[in-house]
């Protein structure tokens, strides 16, 4: 499995919780940016991929023409024939029917809508630039454009959020016809507006935990499988591109701040648009080659995030050799004896009720 990620680092304005690399969009800059992405793609001299994910930022700010140019350009440079899933992220305010129709015509079949909430107050406090109506319009537009695979992001722990408001958000979104939901717990990251000026009505850690648990219940009741810590899907709608991350697969990321994992190396492009536009293929940094111990620990940590699938120790042994796996297995068994993991044959899984405290487990898993 191999994924291709394209980062579109432009937004209309910065959300108050966001620490992703993003800038305000200017049309002239967008044109140059698409060229730069294709130039970086050139530097890879081909490659074949199973999934494509155009994320951001706000990819829908590209507009139809640039999206066409981008996807066409990528298909000339890479082998995208066997793509099993291709996703584009859109924000409600820029997810017009034209754009979605263009995306569909470019063989993009999955759309991920950055909704975050359907509560007006919560949206306002988070600094979102859209309202509730626009979220539902975006879902409708996606359906009307032919998309059958629709995901939305929902945020848990927004200022002023209650179990009831979160429940409303989820119920309305599910009712609108989405089949995948990513529900993230808000974390206050350095460099964000929330970090500089924490809102007074921010739910505390325990409140966040309760909100999360209520979300798990609601989604479960609607038949969504809790397949990853923050991800829920109706049968057949798990995100293949992201599953590849959690299974330790390879991927290439294009664009500033985009990360790659290929040929045993991890690296990312510098989070600097100026440098990227200047020379798209030479801003790599933080390159590291993981030794086996790290690699095994890291992949184990990632795979355990997959709540249902879990970590198959036999599969890991097949990939890394039994000797590399021995100490991992001992660590995992120790966690089982401490009742922090369950073992079922050769598969280890998080205990469903303790998903929220999985950090305590991961610390011991990474070795």
């Amino acid at each position: 499995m191999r994924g291709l990620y394209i980062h579109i680092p432009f937004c209309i304005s910065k959300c108050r919780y966001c620490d992703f690399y993003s800038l305000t969009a200017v049309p002239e800059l967008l044109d140059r940016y698409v060229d730069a992405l294709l130039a970086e793609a050139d530097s890879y001299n081909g490659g074949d991929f199973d999934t494509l994910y155009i994320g951001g930022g706000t990819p829908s700010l590209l507009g139809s023409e640039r999206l066409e140019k981008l996807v066409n350009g990528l298909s000339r440079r890479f082998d995208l024939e066997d793509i099993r899933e291709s996703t584009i992220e859109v924000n409600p305010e820029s997810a017009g029917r034209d754009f979605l129709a263009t995306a569909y015509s470019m063989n993009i079949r999955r759309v991920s809508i950055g909704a975050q909430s359907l509560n007006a107050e919560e949206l306002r406090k988070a600094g979102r630039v859209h309202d509730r109506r626009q979220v539902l319009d975006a879902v409708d537009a996606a359906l009307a454009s032919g998309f059958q695979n629709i995901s939305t992001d929902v945020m848990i722990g927004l200022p002023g959020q209650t179990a009831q408001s979160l429940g409303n958000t989820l119920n309305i979104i599910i009712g609108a016809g989405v089949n995948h939901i990513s529900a993230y717990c808000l974390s206050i990251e350095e460099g964000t507006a929330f970090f500089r000026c924490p809102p007074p009505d921010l739910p505390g850690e325990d409140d966040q935990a309760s909100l999360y648990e209520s979300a798990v219940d609601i989604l479960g009741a609607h038949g969504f499988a809790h397949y990853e810590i923050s991800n829920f899907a109706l049968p057949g709608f798990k995100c293949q591109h992201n599953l590849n991350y959690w299974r330790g697969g390879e991927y290439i990321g294009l664009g500033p701040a985009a990360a790659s994992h290929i040929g045993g190396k991890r690296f990312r492009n510098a989070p600097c648009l100026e440098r990227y536009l200047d020379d798209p293929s030479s801003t790599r940094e933080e390159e590291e080659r993981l030794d086996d111990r790290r690699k095994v620990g890291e992949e184990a940590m990632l795979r355990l995030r997959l709540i249902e699938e879990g970590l198959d120790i036999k599969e890991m042994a097949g990939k890394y050799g039994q000797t590399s796996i021995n100490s991992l297995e001992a660590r995992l068994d120790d966690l089982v004896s401490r009742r922090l993991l369950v073992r079922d044959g050769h598969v280890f899984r998080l205990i469903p009720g303790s998903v929220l405290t999985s950090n305590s487990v991961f610390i011991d898993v990474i070795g």
Partner: protein
Amino acid sequence: MNNLRNFSIIAHIDHGKSTLADRILEMTGMVRKTSMDQMLDSMDLERERGITIKAKSVRMPYKSADGNEYILNLIDTPGHVDFSYEVSRSLKACEGAVLLVDATQGVEAQTIANANLALDAGLKIIPVINKIDLPNAMIDDCSLQIYTMLGLGIEDILHVSAKDGRGVAELLEAIVERILPPSGSVSDPLKCLIFDSFYDPYRGVIPHLRVFSGHIASGDRIMLKSSEKIFEIEEVGYFSLGLARSEHVQAGEVGYAVALIRDAGEIHVGDTIVAADHPEVPAIPGFRMSQPMVYCGVYPIITSDYAKLGAALEKFKLNDSSVVFEKENSAALGYGYRMGFLGMLHMEIALERLKREYEQDIIATMPSVIYRVFLKDDEILMLDNPSKFPPEGEIDHIEEPIIRTRIIVPSDYVGPCMELSDAKRGVLVGIEHPDDRRAILVYDLPLSEMITDFYDRLKSVSRGYASMDYEMHGYRAGDLVKVDILVNNGAVDALSYIAPKEGAAVRGRALIHKLSKTIPKHLFKIPLQAAIGSQVIAREDIFPRRKDVLAKCYGGDITRKRKLLEKQKEGKKKMKMVGFVEVPQEAFLSLMKIED
């Protein structure tokens, strides 16, 4: 001998002693204009904390204004109350002392204590006001304080700026003019004072000496007066910036001797060295073995590192013979050591050095003083570890060590300082008013209050203006009880402490509350209790952690998330497992710095 001058610089902490030493080294041509600040403080820790821990000395050539050539021996002294015995021995090696007073701060408690030590040693004192370059220098006020509080002549006071070098030349002249040359006869039998020592891994313990009579040279057989042990001298020499070998060191001079002394316990500061064939030469008065005042348990974080820690302590003791340690066993922490120190600063420095220089991952328990426990069956126990106290029913009464402290404070803050001292069970001995703006409070205070947070609180109630100094002042009976701390329903012996019965519940609650904030949340509920015997006086629960998950983890995050986990794992390694509970170092010290 007439061209020799042996002197020290003494001062309250931060009054500029090390900076002045640097300027003197420059002006005598020992070092070039500062490439490195504070030459004499060679330990990293000393420089970081801005204090001199171990005394060191340096021999400098000096040509005076009238063209005469002199040898100056600057003997550096530790600048803290924990080391006042060491200071007194260093001063004993001198004929004079430069008493430094910060022009912006004036005479402070340790200025007085040090001046008294110098007068006791019969030294000529040169009073010097430092930091005259600062805009807020109060030279006239300082002069008056030196006169009224120390009884020194205003006309004798020199004004310097150790920082920019102003007045330092005049100071050097005053040193050769005012300080007497050493007396003592080279032809008399050998008598020298050990005023410091250090450990060299190849040559053993190397004592610093002041020769009072006779001379010492390689091949000499010498005797230590305290133990009557005999050693053969391999090498002697002077202190340049390093060691400078010489043929002999003779009466009046300061130097070192190498005698392949492997055991640091053989050499005690204050001991006298005489010639082996003249054992009748009397010892220099004032010698005493250094006496630990404060004890704490030191445990490896990982139980299996116990042997490694023992080896490190053995090595550490070679460098610092004033620490003591012995094996100790704690039900909660496993095998470890009980260490004794001269005082709190000494303890902090020693523990920090163990961690840094000796790379030991350790947990230190709450420091304790030595209690005299009188049992009903007439037995008396000296106990430095609360967990070793007998059951309350067997105890007749308990006595605790007392210090006499001298607190210098601006008049405006006398009230708060007295309130604090009273709250800390102090007994007022006297109040002096050296001038109309400052008061000197003399209190007798339990040492145990001093080692918790007295000094910090004093600084805070006086907005930093109070300074203090103290000396040991015997024992006093106290209405004391042992308080046990239970974590997750098990008593943690290393957290037990001795406290006055009055207010024990209030303090217990404060401690439990602090512990509840210090011990991280776990995946299960942790009850915390304080108890006197079987009576619970305080309780709080640490509720289980409900959420620690890393919510998002996609492509670009993986490396960062892994590093975050690795960092958290490192943090975890710094905690000690007590039963199933991870307890960080701060928890063991939480009795200190409790806000009442």
